[in-house]
Each structure stands twice: as C-alpha cells, then as structure tokens.
C-alpha cells in the first residue's frame, strides 16, 4: 500500500514527537502541543468556515479555570476535570457563537472580542478565580488512575495523546459531510443559502466544535502546568493564536501546529536573550507573512502540490 504524502508526514511527525522528550524539555513540548491543539481548533473556524474569531482565549482560558477549579476545589480526577473544562468551553461557545454568528466580517471579530473581554473581567473580579494570582497549585493526579501527571515524561505522552486525538477529530470534521457544507458556506455564503442551507446553523456548529477543542487544549494545559491565570483569558492570547495560525498556514491541517511550535520555540529561545520578545516575534511574523503568504505549511503544500 502506498501512503499519501499527508499520512507519511504525519507518521514522521509522530515518530519525532515520540522521541522528542529525550532531546527537548518535556515542559516545552507540552506547552507547544497545547498551543498546537488550540491553534488547530481556532483554524477550524478561520480556515474552514471563514470566520475570524478574536475571542478564542475565552474558551482556552475558560476551560483552564474550570478544569483547575474542578481538580483543586472539587477534587475531581484529571480526566473528569479536563472533560468538565472542555464541556464548559462548549457551552460558552454555544452562547458566544449564538450572539456573534449573525455578524459579518470585522463585526464578527469585534463581537467575539467584546464577549471574551467580558469573561476576562468576570474572571478578574470573581471570588473563585483568585484575581491576579489565578488558581495555582492545581493537583495533577493520575490520568485514568494510571498515568502520573507529576512525572514530566509520562505527562508529556498523555498530552501528546490528547493533542493527537484532538487533531484527528479536527481532521475528521474538516473531511466529513458537514465539512463539505462548511467549506461551501466559507466559499460562497449566498450560494449556499440559495441551495437551501441555513448557513448560520453550520457556522454555529463549527463555532461550538472549535470552542470545545480549544477548551480541551486549555483544560489540559491548566492541569499539566498546575495553573490557570488571567494570561489564558486575556485578549493577547486570542491574538497569539491568530498569529500562530497565520504563521503555519490557514486552512491546512498541519499549519497551526507548525505555527504553534515555531512561536512557542521562538519565545523560549528569546526568553533568556534580553531582547524585546514581542517586538522580535512581531518582526519574524511580518517577515514570514511577506515571504510565505499562505503560511509555512500552506506555501510548502502549494509548491509540492499536495494538501497538507
């Protein structure tokens, strides 16, 4: 059997990721993987529904808070705490999506930003979120009663499994009958309406699915790093995920993950350099977008004429 380029590349990437903790710090890898899943979830909206959300931190950070609270205060086991955070993000996605979906273009982005800011202020003020400190010292526990998340390597493989499953789910959604309709709506909304599709329902479904998987990423991150803070819900986080996705390539399955690894890698490489990190990352981003208009992965895919 001959493997498609995408399958072979996926297998290579998986092999590299399985071997990675011998070479790279697991903490770095886990952070990158959580952001990879977050960016991939965001890309479901931007790349396949044509919707630019500027409020995705709400789902990532919202799930982080719920997971942290469930694990620390309620004493839930890790898998249930993550599930709780993920479902909370789904519910939040339904509420925010229902309010934002009717707006078009920049108004949609502004609405999502405004709603996410409301959540930010709620978390800043609410008694259970710990204000500026956030929720710290979240107990890690044993995932499914087996995997000790306190062990960096074990935790890394658990995160890798979650990120891989998340990507698999996204791949399935994009390449499903629903995904076909979604792409049609993205390509030409008026035409989709004229074929009898109530386009808002498809956009809302995509919005909820995207929020759910962003929540899975946020909940996982809160647990393995034992912390949920305002950083996770603030607007800069929404901006970062847009940058990662653009860097890697909109509307490619692998692009957001590549963008996430690049930007997390760059950040940690620059952290000790004394350079102004945001400015350098901004400059790298601008250079990349100018040179690779479709993002790194999008550009490579276009050159090699394969869908990545």
């Amino acid at each position, binding site marked *: 059997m001959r493997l498609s380029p995408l399958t072979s590349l996926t297998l290579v990437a998986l092999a590299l990721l399985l071997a990675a903790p011998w070479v790279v710090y697991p903490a770095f890898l886990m952070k990158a993987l959580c952001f990879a899943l977050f960016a991939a979830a965001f890309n479901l909206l931007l790349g396949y529904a044509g919707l630019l959300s500027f409020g995705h931190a709400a789902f990532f950070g919202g799930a982080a808070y719920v997971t942290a609270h469930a694990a620390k205060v309620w004493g839930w086991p890790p898998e249930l705490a993550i599930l709780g955070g993920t479902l909370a993000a789904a519910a939040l996605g339904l509420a925010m999506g229902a309010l934002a979906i009717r707006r078009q273009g920049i108004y949609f982005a502004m609405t999502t930003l405004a709603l996410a800011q409301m959540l930010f202020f709620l978390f800043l003020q609410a008694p259970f979120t710990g204000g500026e400190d956030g929720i710290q010292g979240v107990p890690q526990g044993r995932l499914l009663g087996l995997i000790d998340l306190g062990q960096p390597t074990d935790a890394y493989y658990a995160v890798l499994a979650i990120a891989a499953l998340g990507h698999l789910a996204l791949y399935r959604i994009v390449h499903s*009958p*629903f995904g*076909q309709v979604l792409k049609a709506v993205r390509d030409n909304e008026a035409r989709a309406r004229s074929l009898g599709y109530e386009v808002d329902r498809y956009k809302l479904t995509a919005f909820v699915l995207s929020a759910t998987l962003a929540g899975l990423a946020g909940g996982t991150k809160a647990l393995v790093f034992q912390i949920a803070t305002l950083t996770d819900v603030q607007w800069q986080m929404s901006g970062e995920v847009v940058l990662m996705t653009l860097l890697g390539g909109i509307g490619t399955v692998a692009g957001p993950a590549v963008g996430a690894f690049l930007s997390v890698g760059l950040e940690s490489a620059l952290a000790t350099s004394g350079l102004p990190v945001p400015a350098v990352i901004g400059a790298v981003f601008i250079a990349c977008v100018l040179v690779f208009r479709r993002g790194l992965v999008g550009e490579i895919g276009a050159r090699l004429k394969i869908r990545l």
Partner: protein
Amino acid sequence: MTDPAMTDAPTVVPITDVVLETRGLTKSFRGFTAVRDLDFTVRRGTIHALIGPNGAGKTTVFNLLTKFLAPTSGHILHDGVDITAASPAAIARRGIGRSFQISATFPHLTALENVRVALQRRTPGRFHFWRPESTLAALNDRALALLAEVGLEARAQEPAGTLPYGAKKALEIATTLALDPDVLLLDEPLAGMGREDVARTAALIRRTAQKENGRRTVVMVEHNLGVVADLSDRITVLQRGEILAEGSYADIAADRAVREAYMGTGHA
C-alpha cells in the same frame, strides 16, 4: 395575462396553474425605485423570459423572489402560498432554485463537489461531522450525470475557481438542477458562453422544462434574444422596474414601445 378573477383572490388560493406570482411588488434603494408595483405571474410548466435593458430591474426581481432582497412592499406567492416572509434557504427548500448573474460557485471545491453539495442538502448527512467524506460517494454518480448534462464531466475533479467563465456558468446550472427544483430562476445563464455551449445549454434548458411531465417551470433573464425567441412560451419586458409589455415573442417583437426601449441600448 392573469385571470382577472385572480387579482382580488384571498391570499391563499387553491393550487392553480399559476406557480409564481407577485402582487404590488416594490423595491426602493434609498429613494431610487428599482422595481415598482410589479404584478408578475408565471404559469406552471412554462419557460418564461424576463427581458429588458440594463438596469431595468430584472436581477432585483430575482433577488426579491428568492428573498436575497427584502421587498419594500408587496407580496410574493408560490403555489398560492404567501412566501414574502420566508428566508432564502426556506424558499430554496420549497423548490425554487436559482442561479446568479455573476457566476456563483464554490471556488475551492471541485466541480463534482459543487454539484454534490447541492445533492447533499436532502440527505441527513449534511450535519454529520463525525463521518468520513467517503459516505458522500453514493452521490457521485448522480453528480457526474449532472455534470455530463452540461458537458463538464471531464473537468469533474478541477477546482471550480480555476474553470473558465463559461464553464462556471454551466457548473452553476448543473448545481441548481441538482436541487431538482420545481421552479428554476436563471439569471443570464448563457452569458460568457461560446457558441457551442450556448446551443447545448439552451437545449438543456428546454429539456429541463420538459421534465416532471412538463410541470417544471423556468424563469430566465437573458440578453440573447435569439435563444429567448426559441425557448420562451411567454416573455415579460421590464423597463425601469415596470412591465412594459408581455406576451409571446411575436407580440413583443411587434410592440412599438418595446422597440423604442431597445433602441440605442445595444441589444437587438
């Protein structure tokens, strides 16, 4: 013309041979009235051409009929049911399919996928996000047959965005036909097509109208008057948002007002 008794009929009338009707339909854009008090009637099973000079309001009428524009006043009836308040998608699901003057395709989907997404509308699978795309393969044969009808079977796997303009128009017709509509609204279906494609598409439109025991209706905006003469059972001439004349091609061709309206507009 309409049966005079119809004009004062109650809003819901029994299904007659009138499939589509507008009553006092008006559309104003900030004071400019593009369609004025239009009483337009289409009989079931006919090919009805809507012609008129540029800017007469033909596309606006189509947009009103399919609710892509909300009327300023007036009513629209399909099969005797008032559909003035329905959404574009609901109108499509009632069986009113349309094409667009500027070709409307899904550029990143292949030609096959364009047609298939229309076929998919009737399947419960349209919301299945957990299933593989291969579950749609059952629709491929029908999609290919529709592409063959418009001469595009060889280009089935090409992204619609890369097709030449005439092919896009043809693809749009195939996609609209995939809805198996009861009423087909075609806005300049032949624009941008070469001579050969014009002949094929005209023949397709005629064939299409004859399906369903001749109960299917086609309303067509078209500047190619040769084809209009050839295909149409009835013609309505629109000018400045109002009906200038209506009748068979012979009636229209003999009409003095129509000749004057068309003088110097570049159409003959």
